[in-house]
């Protein structure tokens, strides 16, 4: 009798309907904790990016602010750290030319392979080329550099004379490295073209090549450009593979066979050997800043292309 009464009292205190209106505090707590955890980890991303931008910018701008090196001197071609001349123009040009050339070589191959995979032999072409590009992506860049050093460089030396190291070797190695980027983005773009466009073209009696050249390539141009620009960005930032085959001499990059330098190769080689705080060392950080700014430029460029595609 007594027990029954206390039970009733307990039930009156917390009726079931009240319980169901609100989840248990424990569950609510877990909910809040989960939200905070995920929130914090996404803030880590922002924190990393902003500290990276701030630190590299302040390090890279330091030699100009302190007046050790003037802008005009930095953007000249006179590089001789022994005599205090730090002109980085030939390295900037070297990086630009080697990546643009690699993209020019790689674009037709990559887009061609993508067309083969989507239009010509969708079944077996895809089955073979898809894993092939995935393996190419996975090969580490030092391995590309090593193969370039042991195969491409001696080959150029025997065929064309000279040292073998230089712009041409860099372009060959880089164009293979960026191929998978161009292929995979081109495939995505070509696949997103609606089927009825192709069928319309074939129904009008167009051949496959006419459909590809007049319809598919034009419709997908912004997407294909995105792939090429991404490939170029990758080539621009690639360090070790390029450093191993480019020759590392401060020459202007206007001859395919002379050894040159790029921003990444000069940083890779000298960051470890120069004294912290010396002008030579600071100027390397300025070159890293140029690399960072170019990356931002590539990102903006890609966003601009995609935006135009969405509008059209």
């Amino acid at each position: 009798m007594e027990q029954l009464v206390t039970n009733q009292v307990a039930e009156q205190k917390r009726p079931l309907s009240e319980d169901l209106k609100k989840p248990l505090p424990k569950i609510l707590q877990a909910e809040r904790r989960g939200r905070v955890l995920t929130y914090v980890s996404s803030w880590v991303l922002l924190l990393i990016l902003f500290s990276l931008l701030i630190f590299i910018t302040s390090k890279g701008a330091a030699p100009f602010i302190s007046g050790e090196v003037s802008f005009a001197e930095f953007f000249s071609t006179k590089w001789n750290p022994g005599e205090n001349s730090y002109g980085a123009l030939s390295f900037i040009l070297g990086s630009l030319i080697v990546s643009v050339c690699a993209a020019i070589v790689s674009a037709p191959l990559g887009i061609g392979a993508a067309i083969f995979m989507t239009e010509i032999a969708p079944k077996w072409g895809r089955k073979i080329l898809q894993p092939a590009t995935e393996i190419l992506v996975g090969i580490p860049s030092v391995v590309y550099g090593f193969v370039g050093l042991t195969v491409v460089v001696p080959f150029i030396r025997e065929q064309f004379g000279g040292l073998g190291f230089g712009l041409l070797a860099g372009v060959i190695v880089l164009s293979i490295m960026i191929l998978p980027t161009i292929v995979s983005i081109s495939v995505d773009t070509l696949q997103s073209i609606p089927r009825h466009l192709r069928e319309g073209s074939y129904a009008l009696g167009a051949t496959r090549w006419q459909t590809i050249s007049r319809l598919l390539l034009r419709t997908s141009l912004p997407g294909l450009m995105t792939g090429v620009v991404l490939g170029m960005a990758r080539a621009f930032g690639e360090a070790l593979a390029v450093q191993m085959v480019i020759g590392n001499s401060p020459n202007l990059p206007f001859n395919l066979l002379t050894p040159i330098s790029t921003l990444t190769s000069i940083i890779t080689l000298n960051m470890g050997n120069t004294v912290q705080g010396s002008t030579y060392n600071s100027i390397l950080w300025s070159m890293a800043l140029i690399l960072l700014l170019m990356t931002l430029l590539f990102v903006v460029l890609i966003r601009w292309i995609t935006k135009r595609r969405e509008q059209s």
Partner: protein
Amino acid sequence: MNAKIKDRIATGMFYLITFLILGILIGLIGFILYRGIKVIDWEFLTEAPGSLLTGGGGVGPQLFNSFYLLILTMLITIPLGLGGGIYMAEYAKPGRLTKMLRVSIEVLSSLPSIVVGLFGLLIFVQYTGWGFSLLAGALTLTVFNLPLMVRVVEQALTAVPREQKEASLALGITHWQTILRVLLPAALPGIVTGTILAAGRVFGEAAALMFTAGMTSPMLDFTDWDPSSPTSPLNPFRPASTLAVHIWKVNAESIVADAKEVASGASALLVIAVLIFNLFARWLGHFIHARLTSGSKS
């Protein structure tokens, strides 16, 4: 007729391009494996590099360092990547902050690895005072890998059918519990595959590590497993060159007597590791998928 002939020529050209790419790939892999297999034996896998002049020895410590660094990196990256990915897929509301997050993921993932390495040198090596160390290397690789992980997790979560989430919420289960008990298990195959592929990328990375984990490896005593001892392989504050860095180093220092052999062997090891990562990622993804869905036999 003209159009038809052009069509044939074009088709031929596309075949040519495809075979060219396949030829390059087969030539590349074949060359690396052919040159490398000759060098790889038990001694090469386990022993430390010999002295500069005589050459000889192997890449034992480098091989260990590569795996240890990979594990350290993944220990940091996976929780953060899961958190970030869940936030982006489930909690992020359309707005300025989310847009900023997306842009920063894009920028971070397109940064050249040498720039990430220099950032690591500045923050984790110099400002923390750790010097060249495994921990600095692992944190730098996290910077490099985190955006990729966040993308992998986000894509895997958004690929889960909407109905599953709605059914769970309709049963009165809270959002966080739905994420943990319904969405994550369903997204697991995609997350696992993506994570292993990302791990493969970390395994072969060198430019970000040269100035953070360093290019040398101290004498290691493989019987000493106390992480605080300076010769212990587990000590996270010791410098450590990985396989990829070692390849670069022996080629850059032209004085190493057997640079070509060491680099060939190490390249072959790296390529074999990457191939295994690739196959394993796919297999594990399928396996988990089969276990979680009607494919299981129990």
